[in-house]
């Protein structure tokens, strides 16, 4: 028997903005022993609707079942599942290095230029560098900076935007209205 292949999926989950929804959503993952690689949440473009972006590794079959179970929660509006090629996604990383090492030579400055990073703040003690990109890119810069001493390194969860021409959620909300008419 072949073991089904695990792939990376990005889930866009839209919900009403109620207390406790994050817990409701994450328990669906926990119960099925699916580890969340990254999670970001904020208000969506539509007022009153919250958006969760979740990255997981799972089989296509598992992810379909998972999405349905999340949608089953009363306050969840809709779950969209994407493979990497269907979305543009980005993460942000911050690196703190000592200002001394920045001024000590031009290597860090070269890295900042090379990786399209930027410097957010310089104080006499430390310098904060910011880079946006995919995880492997922010990770690579971290490894390049490490020899010069990185006192702090943080990376955000993923945010993603679809390549679709239409806004999926708006299309869905419109469809809801027409379904409502049909059912009544």
């Amino acid at each position, binding site marked *: 028997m072949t073991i089904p292949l695990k792939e990376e999926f990005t889930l866009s989950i839209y*919900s*009403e903005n109620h207390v*406790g929804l994050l*817990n*409701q959503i994450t*328990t669906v993952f926990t*119960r099925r022993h699916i580890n969340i690689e990254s999670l970001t949440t904020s208000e969506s473009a539509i007022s009153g609707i919250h958006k969760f972006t979740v990255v997981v590794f799972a089989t296509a079959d598992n992810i*379909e*079942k998972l999405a*349905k*179970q999340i*949608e*089953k929660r*009363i*306050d*969840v*509006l809709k779950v969209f599942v994407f493979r990497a090629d269907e979305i543009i996604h980005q993460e942000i990383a911050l690196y703190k290095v000592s200002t001394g090492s920045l001024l000590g030579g031009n290597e860090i400055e070269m890295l900042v230029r090379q990786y399209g990073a930027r410097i957010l703040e310089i104080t006499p003690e430390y310098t904060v560098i910011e880079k946006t990109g995919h995880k492997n890119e922010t990770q690579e810069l971290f490894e390049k900076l490490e020899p010069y001493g990185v006192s702090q390194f943080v990376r955000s969860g993923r945010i993603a935007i679809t390549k679709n021409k239409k806004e999926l959620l708006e299309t869905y909300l419109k469809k*809801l209205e027409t*379904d*409502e008419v*049909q*059912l009544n």
Partner: protein
Amino acid sequence: MRPKGMRKVTGKVGVCFATSGPGATNTVTGLANAMMDSTPIVLITGQVVSSLLGTDAFQETDVVGVTQPVTKWNYQVRRAEDIPAAIARAFYIARSGRPGPVVIDITKDAQVNELDFNYEPVKSIRSYKPESPIDFHQIEEAARLINLSKKPLALVGQGVIMGNAEKELLDFIEKSGVPAAWTLLGLSAMPSDHPLNVGMLGMHGNYGPNVKTNEADLIIAIGMRFDDRVTGDLSKYATNAKVIHLEIDPAEINKNVHADVPILGNVKKTLPILTDKITKNEHNEWLKEFKACERIEHDRIIEKEIHPLDKGMTMGEVISKVSAAFNDDAIMVTDVGQHQMMGARYFKFKQTRSVVTSGGLGTMGFGVPAAMGAKLGRPDRQVCVFVGDGGFQMTIQELGTIFQTRIPVKIVLLNNNFLGMVRQWQELFFDKRYASTELINPDFQTIAKGYFVPSLRITERDNLDDAIKQMVDAEGPFLLEVVVEKEGNVFPMVPAGASVSDIRLE
């Protein structure tokens, strides 16, 4: 458990109340049971004053957090003026779509404060679609498969009963000529003696429907969810069949068994459309194969169970006699275990909503309180509950409620001094290493006497008929304890993890 019993026989939403803290946490098993068996319940729990929330106040529990995984929806109300809207929403969610339990946790201050009462029923919720729009294309495709099929088998689940679609089911079955088997919770959706009723599916179901599942060329699942107790080993399930799945909950489609033709929606609406599109048919040759299986099962199991030659009484014999004494028309409630499977196999039914049992969760202790709910819901019908000696003690204090309320339920205690179902597994799969299954029981007659519930204990077959008659004729509640064979087994049996076609007759 009581609201669940009531709901199952009436179709209405069951309601219960519990106080904060321990009262609320004691309801978790009942909620989990209702969640598994799609029972609409609204539970209202008390909560500490809102200003004390989060301070570990006396009897404070995070009820919303604790009950979240076992409810369809839950919500905490902290202001009196929010109560009407929350209650309206709770009832709408509990009973619509695939029903389920809802908890509303109300803080003390919200309970005692005043408000200008204004009740507006909920008609829809933006983020919640109880029913999907009907896909006529899929129904066409299903009708095409049904018309082509030579060996179709219908699997009838609780969805039919919850949708009040018994008539629609019969129309479909009778026009298509498809043999119909049922899940535990689908029991009584069709009369027991209907010629196309071929029996129960699953682990302790009938021989025919299990074996024939792997010979069928088409499975028509109607309001059921392919539970593992029904399917056995999924990789060897319905191996020759295409699957049509009529189901209200989208999350059930392709969850366990791939549906070639999913038909989302309430079967009350989808079945008539499907019936309309199929051609009238009969499957006499195929039905004869089920009859042949019935004969095998009858000769090897049923006959011995209901007319035993040995001295000791069997559960099947008692259940079959009790059923007959109620003219096969009582509401049967069961606890969980061997007697439950025996009840499902040997009790007979004429009308729908005649079974209350704990299916998905298998909650021992369920029977007695559920029977009280069933009787309150349908005072016009006889309610008979079968319990084992193990499960009886888990909610035996309900005898106090029976005494207090005089709810006339008939309790048949099938006492084998064992946790029989677990003992059966220990015998068959663990070399008879009986661990924690033999019970040293109290004197149930003395206990019943203490609760002033009339009771009788019999140990001899000669006294069985009279004792049953006495129980049936009793005006009020009655406990009939029957001492049965200690090590009786329920057969047939699909061993856990085996294929349905590897069902064992002994």
